[in-house]
């Protein structure tokens, strides 16, 4: 589903250049993967590359089928346009019917009255709901989720989960979250990023112990010290 051909990439992270890949060839078959790494900040950068959002500096990434945006990233939902305008953008972008799309989102989220207001003025929980509701609209072959999924006991969560479960069958999921339970709920395997390599590991429970989604402070310091010659006391 996703192939990386001789990919080399580096990226600036908190003012430091981080080498992500060096001549990496990798094939990611269809499946449900929890994206794990010793350094949680690297997960987002890796997702950008394998999701085709940022081309690597060298090499190429080929994606078979349609791929979602990283659902749950809310930065693009802080604009001055309204929720309706954003639904229209997604509908136009993916060739969906604007009216049905708007009706779907307004029927799902907990405060449809906010849809006509500028997105930056929405409460964060509602922006999160909106982001996940939008993610259901186009049907994708590969879903990227870069946030904690809705989990609180609410109407939105129940309905969203029920619909997403349906959407997800037979599809690929790449999920990055700070909640291990959610990773176990949705993912079958781990996609581990470590030392510039990607690896698929079947035993997700074991991987979650080896690559905790929120590493201990000591582990982070060791990891950062090991990866950089200077500035290792960044977290101290």
């Amino acid at each position, binding site marked *: 589903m996703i192939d990386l051909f001789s990919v080399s990439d580096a990226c*600036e992270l908190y003012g430091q250049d981080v080498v992500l890949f060096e001549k990496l060839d990798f094939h990611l078959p269809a499946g*449900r993967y929890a994206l794990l790494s010793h350094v949680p900040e690297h997960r987002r950068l890796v997702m950008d590359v394998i999701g085709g959002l*940022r081309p690597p500096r060298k090499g190429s990434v080929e994606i078979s089928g349609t791929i979602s945006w990283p659902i749950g990233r809310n*930065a*693009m939902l802080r604009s001055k346009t309204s929720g309706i*305008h954003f639904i229209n953008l997604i509908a136009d972008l993916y060739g969906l019917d604007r009216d049905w799309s708007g*009706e779907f989102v307004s029927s799902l989220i907990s405060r449809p009255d906010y849809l006509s207001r500028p997105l930056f003025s929405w409460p964060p929980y509602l922006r999160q709901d909106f982001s996940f509701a939008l993610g259901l609209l186009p*049907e994708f072959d590969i879903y990227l989720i870069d946030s904690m999924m809705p989990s609180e006991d609410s109407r939105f969560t*129940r309905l969203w989960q029920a619909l997403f479960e349906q959407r997800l*069958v037979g599809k690929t999921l790449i999920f990055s979250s700070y909640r291990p339970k959610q990773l176990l709920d949705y993912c079958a395997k781990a996609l581990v990023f470590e030392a510039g390599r990607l690896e698929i590991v079947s035993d997700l429970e074991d991987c979650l112990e080896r690559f905790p989604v929120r590493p201990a402070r000591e582990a982070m310091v060791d990891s950062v010290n090991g990866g950089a010659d200077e500035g290792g006391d960044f977290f101290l």
Partner: protein
Amino acid sequence: MSKTDDRIAAWRARREQQQAALAAHGDLPIQLALIASRAETVGRSEDEASDPVLAMVLECVRAEPHETVGERRRVYDAIARGFERGIETGNLQSDYAELRRRQLRTIIRLIEADARSVENADFRVDYRPTGLNEALDPLIGGYRRRRKRSEEEESRQARRRAVLADEVYTIAVPEEEEGDLVYLRDLLARVDARRSAGAGRMSSHLRAFWALLPYQFLLLKSESRVALAWTLIGPAVLMGLLMSAYFLAGIHTILNMDVPTFAMLGSTSWFMLRQIIFRSTAAVHALRTLLNLRAFSPAILGLGQGLIYMCSYTAVYIALIGGGYLAGLFTLPASVPGVAFWLACIGLMALAIGILFGSIAVIWPYFSRFAPVIERALQMVSGVILVSEQLPVQYRWVVLWSPLSHAEQLLRSAYFEGYKSEDADPHYFFVWLGVLTVVAFVSQRLVRSRSVPG
């Protein structure tokens, strides 16, 4: 049925009870075996409530001698034995069994405490040990929490099995939300059906552009109403300054061009150019949140932003020329297609400059601070204030090196009947436009991997 029959039936029932009690607890005296048998029935119950347990314990204590600690202990032991057997034979769930044991232990402890502190405690029917509710409520609360956790764990296990088998895991939805779920499923099916029907009609790049333009226009509109008004006011201010300068010098026509229209053309085209440069620069290096949508690249965002401003300034031109003509201020263009063509060329050059500036700003963000300075310097030598033919021949190179002054003069040539530029060379302009476009897109390609989605 006669009283005798009743007595016989009761006797038979008692006898059966005694036989059952002796069968289960044959090593106990008959009275204690009956107590254990009764406790067994209560222990097997699946009711969370503690009142039946309390009632059973009290009846058992009342039925037997209970004056001394030893006498009561015999009763308690028999109850505990029967209760435990009831739990075992009832095959109760472990958390629930533990709750029942704790309830029994707590009730016996409180009754015994009362029995020791109150002389001649008679354990009436309505008797409740002191502090019973305070002692039992936490047990029920704890049990319910454990039960909930255990149910969650069970559903998590079921979910895990579904994930591993790539099957739909059915999320439990309350009855009142089932209608909503059906409706939402129906809506999604309609969305999918409409998408399948319309798929392939438009290429993905074109569709991305088609989606972006209205969105960016709405962004511009929602930024501030002043932003839209400024597209009209900005050129008018610069035009006023230019006209004043010429009028103060006593000049009313420049090479057969009337000063108001001359000033309007120069100022509006320059405002369009600078807005396109600044906005597309910002879109390329700063509008990174939309890069989360794979269809958008910085170049597409810059192009979209530039086109929005080109369209906006087309409207501004129509408003200014129309209004100015009706007010007797401006003349009408001699060649509308010619004017439109050269305005579009100026806009395209602005787009190329904007994307180039934006690409530089990706590597060196501070560069965007220099963009206004560069633009201001270009304005002086780009035919906005004057055309090259107004200058002595030996100084004309000062403005003619700039491709924009060629475009401005060609624009004025198309607009005015009486002015045909002698110095402007369309080939010179188009070579610059071609080179700038190639440089802009190559630079954008080079820095693309550094544009991280926001």
